[in-house]
């Protein structure tokens, strides 16, 4: 932390000032506060509190006319902040830790601010924080955030600097709004034509900002509760051609085979060697970023237009070794069963394994049922019937299962749970009966948006179901959650699908127009994503082609950038020219100037030393037809100018008379003519 000193640039006037006044400090603090808004959510609250406290302390000091606290206070504070940061993050690398560090630095910088220069440093940090907030993308309201930050900082800079500080708050805001307005076209052109990178230069390893929501690769009933309530979008799908029925929209994610009595885990299955059947559905997927190698595809994916994507042994689309989801891909799937190739013995063993001694009551139940219904299909139907008939409830807030045998607890004691509980319990029962079974997690359904034809799948659509192996038919999907009697679904969830988001439930029931609005908003969001956030080299090339810019891309882009820069400066100069034109504040003077300009076009130019009377006499001599009018106007001007003060409306009447004066068709005699061939203007 450098100690603030008076800047050399501050000039003699600044050197004389002792303490930084309240105004500039408050404006800079407001900028920091604004830029902090979207960042605070992802950072520990104490960081925001510390920044707020530092700003508050400095502002209180400033209102009392005080200066920054002495170094003996500031240094320990800075060290304390850094130590706390390290304890919190264990690193200063990475976006979250870096953002927190920058924020604290800005707060402390305000605390120690002694000169305009310190505040300039804070503004630079504010810009940096803005980029940190925007790097991850975001909704279209981020555009408003971006503009607001630029606007407020520009106004703050006007207030910080300026030895005169003649600009009031409103003037500063209006002025910076105009600057921003003038900057927008150039910024837009730069954004459109600045060459984009096809591949990043470097990556920050592993860490994203905070937790990216999405399904994990384990399932232990109790895990899904957070997820099911989140209304964030997981992905969108747009079907090209036929669309499956809503009840068939099972978006398969990771398949979980390994069970330890409590949690289900993923087991590496290698890659599929079988060729899947003919694809029935083609669709475009747009995935929100998450950190796993699988891709949520409809039921049984057949192909995907994505480099590095393969089908795993359990029929999931994966990209080995990649952990960031692609933005968009085209894929095709089928919903028909896979057909009956015999099950590999190793797989059969894996998919019937249960940890010894776990969940004994469930196993006993399975054995009992299996004796009653020896056929696998009948056995499965019996379990589903039990879920339907017995008092099993569907709820997003089930009682916790803390015992050693959670499946037993759920099946016989609590009987309350959501998809994860039912899928897990079903798979345990099936395995106990010797039927190969596995848990599949993913999403079910989605919301169809009629405005853009997208299916929007949210985190609240997360679901878990089972797949069982039936000899001669292959892996079949069983959704035990669907078996629960509708009257035992938690009433707050009853309206939507089995696992609806709370938002969908609320708007679906109460206000259809609100639902329509939400859908439109979502269509807008898609547009934002596709056109703005995903604008890249290819879209840029398409734009150049549409603009008929010849030549290779880079040269074309450079030419467009240069043209934009040139045009924008011409535009600025044109604006300035109009404003820089000498313009008398005096209405009377203006009107008289207009009169002489009109007469000059007719051929008689007023000499600078010529008074109105002399001028009128000369005009009358040279242009007899103009004479009477000009003499009358000049007399009126002289009387208004040099006579006793009069009412404004007489001046206004004079202005109107000058405007009405048209020296048409008149020409001065040859010798005096200044611009004989000047085109006559009828403009004014």
């Amino acid at each position, binding site marked *: 932390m450098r100690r603030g000193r008076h800047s050399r640039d501050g000039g003699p006037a600044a050197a004389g000032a002792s303490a930084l006044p309240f105004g500039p400090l408050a404006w800079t603090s407001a900028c920091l506060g604004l830029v902090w808004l979207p960042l605070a959510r992802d950072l520990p609250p104490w960081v925001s509190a510390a920044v707020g406290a530092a700003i508050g302390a400095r502002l209180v000091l400033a209102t009392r006319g005080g200066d920054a606290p002495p170094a003996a206070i500031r240094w320990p504070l800075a060290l304390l902040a850094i130590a706390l940061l390290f304890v919190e993050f264990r690193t200063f690398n990475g976006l979250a830790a870096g953002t927190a560090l920058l924020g604290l630095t800005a707060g402390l910088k305000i605390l120690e601010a002694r000169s305009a220069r310190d505040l300039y440093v804070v503004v630079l940090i504010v810009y940096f924080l803005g980029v940190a907030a925007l790097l991850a993308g975001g909704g279209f309201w981020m555009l408003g955030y971006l503009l607001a930050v630029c606007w407020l900082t520009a106004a703050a800079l006007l207030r910080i600097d300026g030895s005169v500080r003649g600009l009031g708050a409103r003037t500063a805001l209006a002025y910076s709004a105009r600057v921003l307005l003038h900057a927008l076209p*150039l910024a837009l052109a730069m954004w459109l034509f600045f060459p984009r990178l096809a591949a990043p230069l470097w990556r920050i390893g592993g860490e994203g900002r905070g937790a990216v929501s999405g399904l994990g690769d384990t399932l232990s009933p109790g895990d899904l509760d957070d997820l099911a309530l989140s209304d964030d979008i997981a992905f969108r799908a747009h079907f090209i051609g036929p669309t499956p029925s809503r009840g068939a929209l099972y978006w398969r994610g990771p398949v979980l085979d390994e069970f330890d009595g409590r949690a289900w885990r993923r087991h590496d299955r290698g890659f599929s060697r079988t060729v899947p059947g003919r694809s029935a559905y083609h669709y475009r997927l747009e995935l929100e970023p998450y950190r796993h190698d699988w891709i949520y595809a409809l039921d049984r994916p057949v192909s995907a237009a994505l480099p590095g994507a393969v089908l795993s042994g359990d029929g999931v689309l994966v990209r080995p070794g990649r952990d960031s989801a692609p933005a968009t891909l085209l894929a095709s799937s089928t919903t028909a069963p896979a057909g009956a190739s015999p099950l590999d013995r190793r797989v059969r063993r894996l998919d019937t394994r249960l940890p010894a001694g776990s969940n004994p009551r469930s196993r006993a139940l399975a054995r009992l049922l299996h004796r009653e219904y020896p056929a696998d299909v009948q056995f499965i139907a019996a379990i589903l019937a039990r879920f339907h008939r017995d008092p099993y409830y569907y709820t997003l807030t089930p009682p916790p299962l803390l015992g050693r045998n959670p499946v037993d607890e759920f099946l016989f004691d609590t009987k309350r749970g959501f998809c994860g509980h039912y899928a897990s319990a079903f798979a345990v029962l099936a395995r106990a009966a010797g039927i190969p079974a596995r848990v599949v997690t993913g999403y079910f359904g989605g919301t169809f948006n009629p405005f853009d034809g997208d299916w929007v799948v949210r985190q609240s659509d997360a679901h878990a179901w089972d797949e069982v192996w039936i000899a001669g038919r292959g892996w079949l999907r069983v959704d035990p959650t669907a078996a629960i009697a509708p009257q035992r679904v938690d009433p707050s969830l009853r309206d939507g699908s089995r696992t609806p988001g709370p938002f969908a439930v609320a708007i679906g029931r109460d206000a259809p127009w609100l639902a329509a609005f939400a859908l439109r908003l979502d269509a807008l969001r898609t547009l934002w994503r596709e056109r703005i956030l995903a604008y890249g080299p290819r879209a840029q090339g398409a734009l150049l082609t549409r603009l008929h810019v010849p030549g290779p891309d880079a040269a074309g882009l450079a030419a467009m950038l240069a043209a934009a820069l040139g045009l*924008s400066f011409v535009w600025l100069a044109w604006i300035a020219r109009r404003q820089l034109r000498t313009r008398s504040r005096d209405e009377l003077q203006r009107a008289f100037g207009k009169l002489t300009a009109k007469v000059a076009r007719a051929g008689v130019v007023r000499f600078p030393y010529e008074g109105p009377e002399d001028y009128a006499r000369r005009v009358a001599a040279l242009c007899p037809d103009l004479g009477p009018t000009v003499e009358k106007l000049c007399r009126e001007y002289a009387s208004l100018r040099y006579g006793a003060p009069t009412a404004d409306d007489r001046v206004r009447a004079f202005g109107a008379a000058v405007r009405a004066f048209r020296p048409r068709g008149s020409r001065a005699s040859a010798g005096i003519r200044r611009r004989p061939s000047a085109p006559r203007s009828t403009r004014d």
Partner: protein
Amino acid sequence: MSAWRHAAAARLRAWAARRHGRDALPAVVDRRRIYILPTGRGLALAALVGAMTIAGLNYASNLGLAFAFLIASTGLVGMHRCHRNLLGLGIDALPETDAFAGDRPRFHFTLTNPSGLDRHDLEIRCGTGAANCDVPAGTVRSLELPLAAAPRGVLRFGHFELRTRFPFGWFRAWTYVQAPLTAYVAPRPAGARRAQDDTGATGAPAPARDDATGDADFAGLRPYAPGVPLKHMAWKALAHGGEPAVRHYAGAKGQALWIDWNALEGLPTEARLAQLCRWILESGRAGRRFGLRLPDRRLEPATGPAQRRRALRALAAFGTGDA
């Protein structure tokens, strides 16, 4: 760094002087004579925007890029506005000013803004001094530029500078006005000796005669001209309905006081000058005719503020080789 900067500034100034020649005041700031460069803050911002752009490109963050480009364009618009803040201003200055040693000499400037554009944060620099002001659209502002307190002597400046960092402080635009400014710093009055008059008799400058009552030297009325002492006004004539008039006294040539360097043998130079200065001021206050004799210079006896100024400037310039 600083020395390098000063050298660069001096070269630029010399180049500008060759390019534009001397300026006649009042001068108008035209496009050709405005120079503009980014300030340190501007360069820091440029570096930051560069970093932001690279980060935005690397992470394919279109929003981050939009932010960086918006700031960059704001900077460019700011550059244009900085330049525009000086364009078309009229500038005038009083070329000479007077002060006493130890006081701050003050130059007087007038800035004229005939355009429809408010001008903010204009700064005039001359030597060590600087002064700031705003000039709203269609107005004229005068401002006073105090130099640092100076010792006796003559301060001559070949040019002064009009500059601005408005609006955001990222750029500085400036122009050089190649017009001479001179500050005469007279010695601070001091000393307790008495001046000699023409007859050779030493005496304090005679106390001011009450010209309004004593009419021995009354030589008639003259038309009023601004600047004459009020007590010389012919109030009676005015009261009788005549034109404003001034009583004129036949200057008592024989009574002119000679303020003489040689009368102060034995004193050091500055003390002598200080004493001479005191006498000049006292004579001026008394409205008395006086002449000044310096080793290198001689001022014929006269009266009035012009004589007083001439005398003080002669003292300021004494021994500096500056006429």
